[in-house]
């Protein structure tokens, strides 16, 4: 945080413009947090297209088994397994995490706390470079001999540990290396986010003046950093089992296959909250802005989030209810699992209480934010059935589980991202997005989404198991009524994917020919809206770095004429 004079800054700015890395290199080798954010965003969007294409291929196979899928061809069982596995891995590790945490964290944290950049800009650049390599590794693993890894995104041994079982020795190892590199990238990013929030806040910004979305991304980073260690340990052991012939997970050699499940889910369950918290933070900020009302219970919300984070470390074994866990232990984990719905429900109620009595404007970002609450609620409520160890014996590994976590992950990764993208697009790119196209895209996504996954709840309750290539081979699952539901889900997916074209059209059209965005199009309070759209290198001229005088949610105060009160406006 070097406090330079304005002249020096402008001089440096000139130098950066004219003598720094030129052309493409300027965007590939930059340490500017906004450029890195865009790199993460566009990589994540590309991976989302890949993951969406995979979903299209295997849903077509399930609805019309054995027929040639347009754009892919006939799906073999091995390809089906690989598609399902990599769809899950890509959507979580290469879409949800880079977009929600890395892209928006990188873009928002320095801007919202009034800093000129992250505290470790070069580590930030390294983080993206490692992430980019990991994306290349996972994409490359799809094309090696034997095809991509097909042992499910949870990679349970012994299936994942031995090439003779999974038939994809190269794909499995590359998958593991890709995931490990991705973790390294986010470890570096997480260190940056936490340190920046702690050390680089604008003068006057106290802990309770930090916008909720920054808190949420940072708490998510803390959860990630604390939970990822055991998985890295487990992943190294799995890698050794695959390549060096050790027997950590092989019972014949004295190992324990269930050990991996514990190490994986010790990370895997906090990971759910790692991606959920940023999406909730985005929702909170959007809801307060578009309800023109002070956030209900800032501190309550913050403490609740911390409680959620702590609890999330004590729920992982609900994934092992039928893996041979001691029933007394299952009871403990059932209680903690059901308990964690309390703080999450609290977050929901706080958001609803913020809406109550506000002057709500239903702009596109607000629609996405409201949809997040509604859809995530369904995901949360269906989780209760799975957390109860008795019910889980039946539901385990059925489409009920699948529909449940898509009702949590879709709102998080897709709805949350669209909310954030439509809200911060003016700041990111300096152009306004079309609200009309945005609303068409919104309804074209939300309605088909429910038509995809509600049938899958029904199928799951009917006993349809996951990870089956062709249900015609199972007489009790091959009935016409079941097949009809599968076709409904697939058709709804096709409709939803088609409506994404509206988004891409809107995105590109707005970039090229959109109306120029003012500094503060939504009349919001937080600091990022006090600088130019898009912000220049360094975010603010050094003699105009913002100072903070109040919290971020002072909307609709009766003692003021305007209904908002920017954080940096002197009292």
């Amino acid at each position, binding site marked *: 945080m070097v406090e330079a004079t304005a002249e020096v800054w402008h001089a440096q700015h000139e130098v950066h413009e004219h003598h720094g890395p030129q052309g493409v290199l300027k965007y590939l080798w930059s340490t500017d947090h906004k450029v890195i954010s865009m790199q993460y965003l566009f990589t994540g969007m590309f991976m989302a297209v890949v993951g969406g294409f995979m979903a299209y291929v295997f849903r077509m196979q399930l609805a019309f088994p054995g027929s040639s899928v347009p754009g892919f061809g006939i799906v073999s069982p091995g390809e089906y397994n690989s598609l399902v596995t990599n769809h899950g891995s890509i959507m979580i590790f290469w879409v949800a995490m880079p977009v929600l945490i890395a892209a928006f964290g990188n873009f928002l944290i320095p801007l919202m706390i009034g800093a000129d950049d992250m505290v470790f800009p070069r580590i930030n650049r390294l983080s993206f470079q490692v992430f980019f390599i990991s994306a290349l590794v996972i994409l490359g693993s799809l094309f090696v001999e034997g095809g991509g890894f097909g042992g499910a995104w949870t990679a349970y041994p012994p299936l994942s540990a031995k090439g003779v079982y999974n038939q994809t020795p190269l794909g499995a190892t590359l998958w593991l290396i890709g995931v490990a590199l991705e973790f390294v990238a986010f470890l570096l990013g997480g260190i940056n986010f936490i340190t920046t929030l702690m*050390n680089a806040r604008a003068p006057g910004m106290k802990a309770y003046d930090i916008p909720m979305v920054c808190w949420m991304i940072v708490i998510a980073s803390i959860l990630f950093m604390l939970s990822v260690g055991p998985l*890295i*340990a487990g992943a190294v052991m799995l890698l*050794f089992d695959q390549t060096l*012939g050790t*027997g950590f997970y092989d019972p014949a050699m004295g190992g*324990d296959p269930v050990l991996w499940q514990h190490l994986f889910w*010790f990370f895997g369950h906090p990971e759910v909250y790692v991606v959920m918290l940023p999406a909730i933070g985005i929702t909170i900020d959007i809801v307060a802005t578009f309800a023109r009302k002070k956030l209900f219970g800032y501190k309550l919300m913050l403490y609740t989030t911390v409680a959620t984070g702590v609890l999330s470390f004590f729920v992982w074994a609900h994934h092992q209810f039928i893996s041979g866990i001691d029933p007394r232990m299952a009871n403990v984990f059932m209680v903690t699992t059901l308990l964690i719905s309390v703080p999450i429900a609290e977050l929901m109620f706080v958001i609803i209480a913020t809406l109550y009595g506000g002057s709500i404007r239903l702009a596109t970002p607000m629609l996405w934010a409201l949809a997040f609450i509604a859809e995530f609620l369904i995901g949360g409520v269906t989780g209760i059935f799975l957390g109860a160890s008795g019910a889980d014996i039946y539901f385990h590994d059925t489409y009920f589980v699948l529909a449940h976590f898509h009702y949590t992950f879709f709102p998080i990764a897709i709805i949350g991202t669209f909310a954030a993208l439509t809200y911060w697009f003016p700041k990111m790119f300096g152009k306004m997005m079309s609200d009309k196209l945005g609303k068409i895209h919104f309804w074209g996504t939300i309605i088909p989404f429910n038509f995809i996954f509600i049938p899958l709840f029904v199928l799951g309750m009917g006993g349809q198991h996951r990870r089956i290539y062709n249900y015609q081979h199972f007489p009790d699952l091959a009935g016409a009524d079941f097949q009809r539901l599968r076709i409904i889900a697939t058709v709804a997916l096709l409709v939803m994917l088609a409506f994404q074209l509206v988004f891409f059209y809107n995105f590109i059209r707005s970039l090229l020919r959109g109306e120029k965005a003012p500094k503060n199009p939504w009349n919001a309070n937080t600091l990022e809206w006090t600088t130019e759209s898009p912000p220049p290198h360094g975010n603010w001229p050094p003699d105009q770095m913002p100072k903070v005088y109040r919290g971020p949610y002072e909307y609709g105060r009766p003692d003021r004429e305007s209904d908002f009160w920017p954080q940096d406006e002197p009292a």
Partner: protein
Amino acid sequence: MATESAAHEIEQRPEPVSRPKILADGVMGMLLFVFAEIMMFAGLISAHRIVRSQVAGEMWPPYGQPRLPVQETAVNTAALLVSGIVLVFAHLAFKKEASRARLPILIALLLGLFFVGSQGAEWVALLGEGLTIQSSTYGGFFYLIVGAHGLHAIAAILALGWASFELYKGRLTGSQLATVSVFWYFVVLLWPVLYLIVYL
């Protein structure tokens, strides 16, 4: 109405001056990294304990596998602990006058090199006695955990070597030394725990 406006009162704050800093950036980043590392070793240790507890009759080491050299490694452990203490003195000396820290840092470095070197010699001996990473989970965990710590020790030596070089050039800052030391202390304090769990 009066009560309502009172409810909207917010505290009058003095004019803000500077950015709040809890710790030096580097120290804080390194501490966060160390927390993640502690969790990774916690994962390795719990995996080790779980697999060990499932061995029939608590045969540990399993039949036919050599015992680990407990006494020789105790010497290494002592050397590493001493290096940590020496580094504390280096830190105190650095605060008085930067150049006074040269010798203690060099001693700490040599002790660290001695630790890694004799651990390496120990590995060679154990490989000769038939303990390999594939021979049993006993051997697997030994090489995995001790190897992971060894890699960290090498990284710490490289970092402290860099700090020592910068010190001779007169460029080392207090927060740089603190950042490197945090990692060194982590490597030093982790080792006795691993020694207790893996060797004893």
